[in-house]
């Protein structure tokens, strides 16, 4: 989706953007984010408001400088040098130093990478060639912040967190079963000290824990400006006058097996399950063409070679394999229990579809609801069943980084790390697929809808929302009085 603004319209300062997100709470400390988790996305989107990265990637594949203005590397791509932008200040007015960058990045960088301050910049030394370091730093949790140790880290981004409030919300009928939850509300106001200039918006109010259906209703009723939607609500939103955005497939739904599947019969069973699933129908029919069949871990948009993996259903072969599995293996005679996150309706739907498809091959799968903790957390300590339907988020632009986090979550340690080169990475991914600890099913994009008065919103296909460049068309009394040429009314000292 391209820029929303009409070419001739000039940006207006002022206004409060009201955003509604599905995640129930926000964590604004990147160190505490878990790679691959569903909350990562919302945390990242909020962190973008407060923090900057060294660089970003635009929609045309070009790295744009942020806090780093220049970068270079040696021939082996093991040592990278970044020149820091001068004159950058944190929201409290203190200057950004190389030490801050080092302190922030060292806690985030993968093992084998060391960051040091060099005059006017930083250097990152990697034990192995890091040809994708720019992709790594331009995505994921690699924000530059200063942790004072007294709560919220400070950032250099366009907004400052002004307040966090919580209020009780009535339990929703879908999602958490009857449990009362707190609604978290965050308010971000513009940062006057931002090196990139103050944003057009006066503030952004974010309401957490809003179910997609409610977000859609709020958008239609004018109570929200930007709302995060789901597969079915996105379809509905497309039939309204709202502007809808669909990202590239960012969440992989996969079947994760407990146990390493070493016995041959288990391997056969898993292969049979994989062959019995009609991923195309799942994506096309069940998910109403909003998803993509996933035959590999990395999506096509991230690896470029996902089409090489066969995702076709082969029911005959599946039945043949099933015939060779002894009844003692769960899934053959006794049902194979698949744990599903009780809070995620989509997971449940996909798991049920897998069960239906598997039944056509003579395999018995039974969905079991897990507790309130997210089943998408691939580092969960214990599964309740023999398999788990997990939702894995692609949280990096580096294909290698994504594969490594998937591998660690599937408890398969990379023999010598995931290679950077595409050939070798493809072979590595193919081997990991053959291990069948993780069976990819479908990849689902993010969905959002915006009100017509939201302008200049150009999110990236990989899910960055980039709210800093957004402006609101004024004139809505419900949003306070606004004058197109007036200065912001709600400016407050940091």
């Amino acid at each position, binding site marked *: 989706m391209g820029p929303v603004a009409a070419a001739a319209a000039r940006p207006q300062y002022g206004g409060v953007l009201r955003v509604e997100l599905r995640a129930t709470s926000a964590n604004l400390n990147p160190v505490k984010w878990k790679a691959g988790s569903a909350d990562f996305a919302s945390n990242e989107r909020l962190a973008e408001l407060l923090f900057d990265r060294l660089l970003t990637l635009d929609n045309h594949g070009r790295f744009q400088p942020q806090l780093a203005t220049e970068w270079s590397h040696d021939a082996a791509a093991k040592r990278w040098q970044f020149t820091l932008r001068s004159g950058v200040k944190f929201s409290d007015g203190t200057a950004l130093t190389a030490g801050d960058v080092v302190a922030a990045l060292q806690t985030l960088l993968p093992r084998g990478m060391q960051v040091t301050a060099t005059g006017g910049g930083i250097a990152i030394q990697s034990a192995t060639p890091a040809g994708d370091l720019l992709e790594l730093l331009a995505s994921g949790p690699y924000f530059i912040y200063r942790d004072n140790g007294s709560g919220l880290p400070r950032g250099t981004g366009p907004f400052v967190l002004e307040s966090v409030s919580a209020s009780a919300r009535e339990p929703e009928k879908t999602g958490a079963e009857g449990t009362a939850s707190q609604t978290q509300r965050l308010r971000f106001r513009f940062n006057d000290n931002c090196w990139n200039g103050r944003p057009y918006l006066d503030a952004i109010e974010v309401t957490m824990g809003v179910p997609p259906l409610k977000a859609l209703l709020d958008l239609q009723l004018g109570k929200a400006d930007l709302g995060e939607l789901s597969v079915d609500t996105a*379809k509905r939103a497309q039939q309204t006058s709202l502007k809808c955005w669909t990202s590239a497939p960012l969440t992989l739904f996969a079947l994760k097996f407990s146990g390493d599947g070493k016995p041959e019969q288990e391997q056969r069973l898993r292969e049979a399950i994989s062959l019995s699933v009609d991923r195309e129908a799942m994506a096309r*029919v069940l998910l109403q063409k909003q998803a993509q069949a996933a035959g590999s871990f990395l999506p096509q948009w991230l690896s470029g070679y996902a089409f090489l993996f066969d995702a076709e259903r082969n029911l005959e072969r599946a039945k043949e394999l099933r015939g060779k599995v002894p009844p003692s293996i769960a899934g053959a005679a006794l049902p194979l229990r698949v744990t599903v996150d009780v809070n995620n309706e989509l997971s449940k739907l996909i798991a*049920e*579809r897998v069960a*239906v498809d598997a039944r056509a091959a003579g395999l018995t799968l*039974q969905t*079991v609801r897990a507790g309130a903790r997210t089943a998408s957390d691939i580092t969960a300590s214990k599964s309740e069943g023999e398999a788990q339907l997990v939702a894995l988020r692609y949280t990096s632009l580096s294909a290698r980084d994504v594969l490594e986090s998937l591998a660690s979550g599937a408890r398969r340690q990379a023999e010598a790390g995931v290679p950077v080169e595409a050939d070798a990475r493809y072979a590595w991914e193919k081997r990991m697929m053959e291990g069948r600890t993780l069976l990819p099913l479908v990849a689902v994009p993010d969905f959002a809808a915006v009100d017509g008065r939201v302008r200049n919103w150009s999110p990236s296909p990989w899910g960055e929302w980039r709210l800093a460049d957004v402006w609101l068309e004024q004139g809505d009394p419900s949003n306070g009085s606004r004058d197109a040429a007036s200065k912001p009314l709600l400016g407050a000292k940091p």
Partner: protein
Amino acid sequence: MSFRTKLFLLFLATVLASVSAVTYSVTHYTRAAYEETDAQRTAALVAQFQKELAHERESVARQVDNVTNADVTLKMAIDQTKPDPDQSLYVRDASGAAQEHGLDFMEFVIADGTLISSAEYPARVGYKETWVTSVKDWNGSEAFLRRVELPNEVAVSLTAVRTQPNVARPFYTIGGRRLNENFLASLVAPAGLRALLYLNLDSGSGFVPEDVMSSTGKVEQAERFAPMVAQLQKQPGPLIQTIQWTNDAASAETFHALPLMGRNGELLGALLVGSSRADLVHLTRHVMKLAAAVAAAAMLIGLFLTWWVSARITRPIEELAEGAREVAAGHWHTRIDLDGQDETGQLAAAFNHMTQTLSAQRERLVQTERVAAWRELARRLAHELRNPLFPLQITVENMQRARQLGPEQFLEVFNESTATLKAELANLNSIVNRFSDFSKMPPPEFSRVEINEVIRGAVRLFEPQFHEVGKPTITTEYFLKEGLPEIDGDPELLHKAFQNLVLNALDAMPAGGTLTFRTTETQSGVRVEVSDTGKGLTPEECSRLFTPYYTTKQQGTGLGLAIVQSVISDHRGTISVASEEGHGTTFRMELPRRQPGVAAKKAQAAVAERPPAQTKAETAAAND
């Protein structure tokens, strides 16, 4: 058993029989009435269920009609008739339609059977529902029970199917409501009745206790329904069974099972109407308790009445019995003092009169018998004495005549006459001794005796006679039971008695014969039988046999059998005779084992081994 006891038992039996009969009748009719009422209530509840089910069918059909006729559904149906329709557009619509119309299940199926939207199982979208395409037009059809597959379970639904009428190619709307405990909650069951549902959801797996549901939730001990359900599965049809939940009979419950069939006659579940039998059991128990109480009370009353009545009746009878025993013991002047004009008073008066009469008659009889006995004795004496006296007289006369003879002739006659005189005097002496002996037969001296030995000893004496040359042979046969218990007896007296019997038998068999001795054990003692094969006795002879001095022989005192009878009588035994004229006579004696007040003492080893010197009695007996 005493009369009191008999009366008490009779009264008791009467009371128990009456109480039992009444109790049985009451419980029987109570049970019948209860069963009838129970059947009516059950039928009413079943009818209520049927009615609710019919109502629910109509409601479901109506809602499905509404969904089918909705604009949204029509649009969906029209879209699906176009070439390459986008089936993914409507994946979520069934869920909304179900919620809007208060249904639990909703599915949309296109002409080829492909499911394009499902409220209850969205994951099955794209798969085929071939059963629905078997009927082209479902409109107007009734709702029916159907097994519905859900992701983690199988449910039973009241389902209606409708075909969208406005499109060329069939478009099916399938809607339904789940049949579960909520439906049961809509039934109002009278007290003591409950309705359960068993949803036989997977007939291949047999009985599943969790499939039994009630309006209040889980059913305890559901596994007890297994046999009933198994029978239903084998042969679907109304069924009645009683289940007792605990050891207490009051916990029993009678279940009427009504099978719930699907459209194709498959068994999908059963309605179980349970009727508690607690009331009946309690009532029955109550009646039984009451009956038991009544019986116990009646027993007590009966006991009292019996004691009182029997006291009034049995006391006089006991007095009468006591009086009779006194009379039997020889106290002929016993009188019973009983007042009253009733039967017992009359009986006492009659008894007293009887004893008085008997006493007078006895005295007269005694007098008469004494006179008769004196006459008999005089006659016998005269007869006995005459015999020796006549020869005495002849001899003396001979001696008087012989005085005229010469000395030598007189001496010969004198010697012969004196010998005769001496013999006859000895005979007279013997007769006198015998009478004397009889008059003063000593009382028995009891000791433990072996009766077989006594018999053998008594008979041994006569052995030489049995085989004397020139005389008829007497054959003796012994049937003496070995191991007979010793009895209290006087061995000498018994010996004498048996000798007398042998003598009597010898006298009865002048031409020889067989003398048989038989001993057996009786309950109270021993029985001895002495049989001969003589000429037998007439009835008159039988009756007077034991009368002293009665004899059928030309000679003899007639005391032998009297002595026998006296000895037997002293031993508190009995003697009887059986005889048939021309065939022989059998004397049967029964002797008790014990005599009162006798210390156990074994008799002398062998009366038979006594030295040959006979006692006086034996001598007297030998001479008879």
